[in-house]
């Protein structure tokens, strides 16, 4: 065996290689009615990061998380934790999870009783359970309701209890399915901050699924977009947004100045927005590339126009997500890129924005003519 093959990258906490999952009906004669949830999924999650899985309903996010948790066995493929086989029980790291929203705990028991019970299941000593329970209840501001039955708590509190139970025993990996769904702003913020602290201060690895793009954008170190059981892209939020950054520039200037130069821009696409204060207008230029803006800037300078603000408009993560899934539906495939120079050799694409240095992606269109028509 190749010596390099034995080298294990310990900075990768979770690795899924060519993981396929098909759910078959119970009876063998119904095998043809199987539903494929994952089609050769490849995913690597770095240690000490928050990895968010995004995807439309039925994309395979929950199946992925449950395979990582060991609750579902893959049909084929390999899963490893820190380079060790992920199927063998003894080699699995400690994993905490909240997979069913608030439903992962005993509603008839109190938060403290839940923590004690699951602590015992995890094999913690009574002293350790007591210490950790106290800490967790205080951190999640549940101490004063520690002895109330969980069913009498608000949804936000129930979610906090479920996360506390998952955190008990100091798991190395935390899996969360929609952790802030349906929570009030304060509770969502508390959980968001807690997750950040867990990663930044304690080096935990968190994998979460969500449909809340603001949550994904605010806490994720890396975002993986899954659709139809396959990974479309996996990169940092910043890179993804950068990659899809349009050549849109937003200017704020006085109405009189704008009226002076507007005639020069009739051949340029722009949108105009009236502003309520001081007779200002906001002009957004929709350009083909960033170089075009130099021409605009030159014209404005020539006319001695002073603008109040200027910024390049960045897409939101939601817009990036929608763009990627839209491109995928139109036949585009996304290949992870090892070297940014490859970009120069990448096949031409009409639907992707111009190349950005930080990009770690390359797109190949299966059918560029179809794309052009689109």
């Amino acid at each position: 065996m190749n010596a390099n093959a034995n080298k294990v990258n310990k900075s990768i906490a979770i690795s899924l290689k060519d993981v396929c999952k098909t759910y078959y009906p119970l009876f063998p004669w119904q095998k043809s009615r199987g539903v494929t949830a994952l089609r050769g999924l490849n995913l690597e999650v770095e240690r000490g990061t928050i990895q968010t899985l995004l995807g439309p309903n039925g994309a395979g996010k929950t199946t992925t998380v449950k395979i990582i948790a060991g609750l579902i066995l893959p049909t084929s493929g390999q899963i490893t934790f820190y380079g060790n086989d992920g199927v063998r029980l003894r080699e699995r790291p400690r994993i905490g999870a909240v997979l069913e929203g608030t439903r992962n705990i005993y509603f008839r028991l109190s938060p403290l009783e839940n923590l004690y019970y699951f602590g015992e299941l995890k094999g913690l000593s009574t002293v350790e359970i007591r210490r950790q329970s106290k800490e967790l209840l205080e951190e999640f501001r549940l101490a004063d309701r520690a002895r109330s039955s969980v069913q009498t708590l608000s949804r936000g509190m129930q979610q906090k209890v479920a996360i506390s139970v998952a955190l008990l025993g100091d798991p190395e990996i935390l899996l969360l399915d929609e952790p802030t769904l349906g929570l009030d702003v304060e509770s969502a913020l508390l959980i968001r901050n807690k997750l950040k602290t867990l990663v930044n201060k304690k080096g935990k690895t968190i994998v979460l699924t969500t449909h809340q793009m603001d949550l994904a954008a605010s806490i994720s170190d890396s975002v993986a977009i899954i659709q139809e059981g396959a990974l479309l892209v996996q990169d940092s939020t910043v890179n993804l947004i950068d990659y899809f950054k349009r050549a849109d520039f937003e200017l704020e200037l006085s109405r009189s100045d704008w009226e002076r130069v507007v005639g020069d821009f009739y051949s340029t696409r722009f949108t105009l927005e009236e502003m309520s204060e001081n007779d200002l207008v906001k002009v957004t230029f929709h350009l083909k590339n960033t170089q075009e803006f130099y021409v605009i800037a030159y014209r404005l300078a020539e006319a001695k126009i002073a603008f109040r603000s200027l910024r390049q408009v960045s897409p939101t993560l939601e817009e990036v997500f929608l763009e990627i899934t839209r491109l995928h539906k139109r036949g585009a495939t996304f290949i992870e890129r090892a070297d940014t120079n490859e970009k120069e050799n990448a096949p031409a694409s009409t639907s992707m924005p111009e190349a950005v240095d930080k990009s770690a992606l390359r797109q190949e269109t299966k059918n560029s003519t179809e794309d052009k028509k689109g």
Partner: protein
Amino acid sequence: MAFLKLVRAEFVRTFLLTFRYPLEFVSGLLLMYLFFFGLFIGARTLVAGGTIISFSLSSFIVSYLMWFFVISALNRYSYSIEVEAQQGILEQIYLNFPRYLFLQYIRAIVDFILGVVFVSLLLTMISFTTGHFLTLDFEASWQAILVVVVSIIGINGFGLIFGGLALMFKRIGQVGSLMQFVFFLLSYLPTEQFSRNVQFGLYFLPLTQGVKLLKLIVIQGENIFSQTNLSLFGGLILNSAAYFCIGSLFFLLCERKAKIDGRLSQY
């Protein structure tokens, strides 16, 4: 040590879940008590002249209490799996304690201990109402408990089969209810009245040998370790061990199938 910790954890959990709503526990007890009298009065009307002799009443009580343990052992796996899958706790348990079958064994022990408390209360209520007290000396008592435990281990095998089915199908409550009546019939079978060939066949059925031995101890004051009863007790042990092993194996197969099909949380 770890085993005892788990027993304690399960005991506390079961105790809290049972007694958090005491009315539920009391109504369960009353239901079993009233059901006994429903059966008792029904049986009385079937006896010629409406009289029921002490021997029959003792037999009736023993069979009834045995049946209680049977239905507990039979339904506890499937019921707990159904409820916990519905509540989403099943996955959390699997995540924290992957050797779920072992946990179910511990739960069975805890349930049996709590069942003994329940049966003691029920027996007290029945005895005071009928004015008929089962008298047992120390030796007979522990032999009776031994027979009950060995019989219940076999029934747990059946319970595990239903538990395995519950993992895959989730809603199997009706099958469990149906089987309760099959076992009810088995616990009341007048085994001593059958021919030798039929009695040999009964060795292979669950429960019948246990009920027969229990009646011999409680009603006729016999010793299970006497020469005549030892083969019967040996047969009971083999019978229970076989059903328990088959049940455990079936449960493990269903568990694997449920993990492959992603059915642990489906309801």
